[in-house]
């Protein structure tokens, strides 16, 4: 998966955690862990709606619930690769977006998680957009944000 053609529209996020790689990896595939962190701030992910079948072709589904108004945000994905504890790849059939999580052991009980998303979103697939999005969309967002306001 790592040699997938670049330039479609990529987002990359990394974070280092003070925890062994095996544990961090398990957090990403076990509902009992996912329910604690999968939703962003102000959004819960009830345990009963998390479905995880960590093998190629297996499902990864969650329903995030907005704590303020109860709005629901379902996510439906299918695992493409499950290589414990190094790599996890899933694709969201609805959008075609593929998310690759890479877990690197930094030693000393620290783990770096790198999230790499491609095909964001499906509509970026015009040849012109593909050519232009070889660079990270994340940096592009920073660039947009840095533009002076009105």
């Amino acid at each position, binding site marked *: 998966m790592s040699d997938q053609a670049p330039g479609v529209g990529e987002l990359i996020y990394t974070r280092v955690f003070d925890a062994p790689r095996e544990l961090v990896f398990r957090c990403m595939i076990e509902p009992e862990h996912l329910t604690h962190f*999968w939703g962003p701030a102000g959004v819960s992910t009830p345990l009963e709606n998390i479905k995880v079948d960590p093998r190629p072709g297996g499902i990864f589904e969650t329903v995030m619930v907005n704590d303020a108004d109860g709005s629901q945000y379902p996510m439906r994905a299918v695992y493409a690769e499950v290589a414990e504890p190094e790599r996890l790849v899933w694709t969201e059939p609805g959008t075609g977006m593929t998310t690759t999580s890479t877990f690197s052991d930094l030693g000393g009980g620290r783990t770096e998680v790198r999230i790499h998303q491609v095909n964001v979103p499906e509509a970026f697939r015009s040849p012109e957009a593909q050519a232009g999005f070889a660079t990270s969309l994340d940096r592009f967002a920073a660039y947009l944000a840095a533009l*002076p306001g*009105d």
Partner: protein
Amino acid sequence: MDQLDATFTALADPTRRAIVARLAEGDATVNELAAPFDMTLPGISKHLKVLERCGLISRTRRAQFRPCHLERQALDAAAGWIEENRRTWAQRFDKLGAHLRDIQQAPSPDGTASQGKEGQARE
């Protein structure tokens, strides 16, 4: 989605991004825009048409100067989509970090052991 698509496509070009950056500082005529880019007027005009078509810029009909104006809402919509996704992962990672601290450091009140070393059976 079509509008957002067109916006991203337009911004995929580095010259057009530079034009947008220039217009973020204030309105400018085609001549003013062409100067720093070392481009012909027709070349700049072509880029401006793409930016205009997706709604990123507008041009007043006033006289022959027709200054270009950046439409910030269109830019904000594009930046917003990326930013929302970025924020989701940032907050998710914040929570994951807190969760990892919880399960590694403090045995829970009900006596459940830390899962840091031994791990938990997969279901």
